[in-house]
């Protein structure tokens, strides 16, 4: 009983280590392809990156907007509940602005994009792997990493910060809607308070996070896709695994980045 439990824990740990190592290898290979490409004149396949950016951004934009707006409303209401008791309703603007830009916008955007685009990457590459299209690329002398992985990673690293800024704006607008409509705070006062509270560093912290999250979504999605073996049913498994792992890793990374900025002040 105990030995089976230990054995399965051991196997799970071993799988985790093996997986982590191969994700790391993928990251290193992708980075080295970018450098090699830079010497040949094209670090990243430009056209493919544009196509992937449009794919990543287009589908997620309305969803990110809607969810950020709603979360902005929720944050304003929740903070008014406490701040009202202290007679400090004016501070709702500060609280919403800081929590949205530093934390919620990058996190929510990353989770939405992991669900929409990370899963799409995993499914697409897994299908290509299963139908030997990846092998076909290799045999043609086209490197699958620089042809498929690098453009997707680059697209995410550009698109996710942009979506995060969009989310920042709509989250604050959501807070503003509550402040003017429900709490009776004037619009000008709210906006002035928001700009007082926000410093550039808050927004940059959020964007640093979103770049890290973009790397996680892209690497995990590509890795799950490329390591798929077997038949069509494995494609579904790879897709699910990509989303679940991305979200777990995003939250872990969020903790590290937040702690880092907290310690550094």
């Amino acid at each position, binding site marked *: 009983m105990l030995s089976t439990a230990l054995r399965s824990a051991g196997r799970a740990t071993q799988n985790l280590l093996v997986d982590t190592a191969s994700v790391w290898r993928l990251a290193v290979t992708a980075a080295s392809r970018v450098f090699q490409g830079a010497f040949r004149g094209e670090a990243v396949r430009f056209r493919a990156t544009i196509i992937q950016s449009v794919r990543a951004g287009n589908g997620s934009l309305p969803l990110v907007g809607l969810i950020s707006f709603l979360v902005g409303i929720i944050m304003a209401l929740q903070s008014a509940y406490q701040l009202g008791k202290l007679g400090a309703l004016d501070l709702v603007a500060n609280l919403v602005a800081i929590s949205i830009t530093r934390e919620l916008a990058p996190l929510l955007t990353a989770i939405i994009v992991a669900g929409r685009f990370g899963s799409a990457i995993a499914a697409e590459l897994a299908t290509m792997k299963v139908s030997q299209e990846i092998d*076909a690329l290799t*045999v043609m*002398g086209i*490197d699958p990493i620089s042809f498929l992985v690098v453009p997707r990673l680059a697209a995410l690293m550009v698109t996710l910060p942009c979506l995060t800024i969009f989310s920042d704006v709509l989250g604050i607008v959501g807070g503003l809607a509550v402040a003017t409509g429900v709490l009776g705070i004037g619009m000008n006062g709210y906006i002035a308070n928001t700009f007082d509270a926000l410093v550039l560093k808050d927004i940059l912290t959020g964007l640093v996070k979103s770049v890290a999250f973009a790397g996680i979504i892209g690497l995990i999605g590509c890795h799950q896709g490329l390591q798929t073996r077997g038949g069509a049913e494995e494609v579904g498994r790879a897709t699910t695994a990509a989303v679940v792992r991305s979200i777990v890793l995003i939250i872990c990374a969020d903790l590290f980045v937040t702690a880092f900025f907290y310690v550094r002040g």
Partner: protein
Amino acid sequence: MNADEPAIEVRALRKSYGGRTVLNGVDLEVQQGETMVILGASGSGKSTLLRCLIGLERPDEGTVIIEGTDIFALDSHALSSLRRRMGMAFQGGALFGSMTVAGNIELPLAEHTRLPSSTRRIVARIKLGMVGLEDAMDQLPSELSGGMRKRAAFARATALDPEFLFFDEPSAGLDPITAAGLDRLLVQLKESFNVTLVVVTHEMVSAFAIADRLALMHNGRFIVIDSPSAVRESQDPIVRRFLDRRPPESLDGAARFRKFFTD
């Protein structure tokens, strides 16, 4: 290149997956301009051998030498320039689903040549015309039938006019007429361009139709490598069984059934 040096040389290749030996000491020489057909039952290791020949799979032991160079000793850059001289048609076609049929054929041209896009389009039309698919140029692979996909994959494999052509199961799952058409295409291609062809198949008819030499794989090694006429005359029991389509004794249900009751 040395005149009497074989184009492809396989030496003592071994490969196993998780304790199961798939290739167990394979030796093979393919001459320049020759059509070598590799025959074998399903699971006999012939597809794995093909994957080793093009460097997709690294063997546990042994090596593959193409025109005097060990392909597993090459760095990735040198290997990919060698691969520009190779074409491979995969079993299921492995066409890129996001591109049209013409786009599939233009991709290697766009990657490895400086041809302008109009010229690439013309080359794609010629290659597709060769396999009778010029009308399907702007269709997506998902809109094609299985046989059309195989032909399109064949056209893609020849896009860069390769010197070595590898073909995995050209006629599996095709009707006899389409299969015969593909066989004839392979023979024509060899006669007009002097390519070195390696074809993996389990279809006896098409094997004898195209082969200069046949190699029969059994349990991870070749039990015979010879000309079609010599293979046809062979008295080796395993070769005979393969040629005469007899099931192995272990699968003879009636005999086992009797044995079960008499013992």
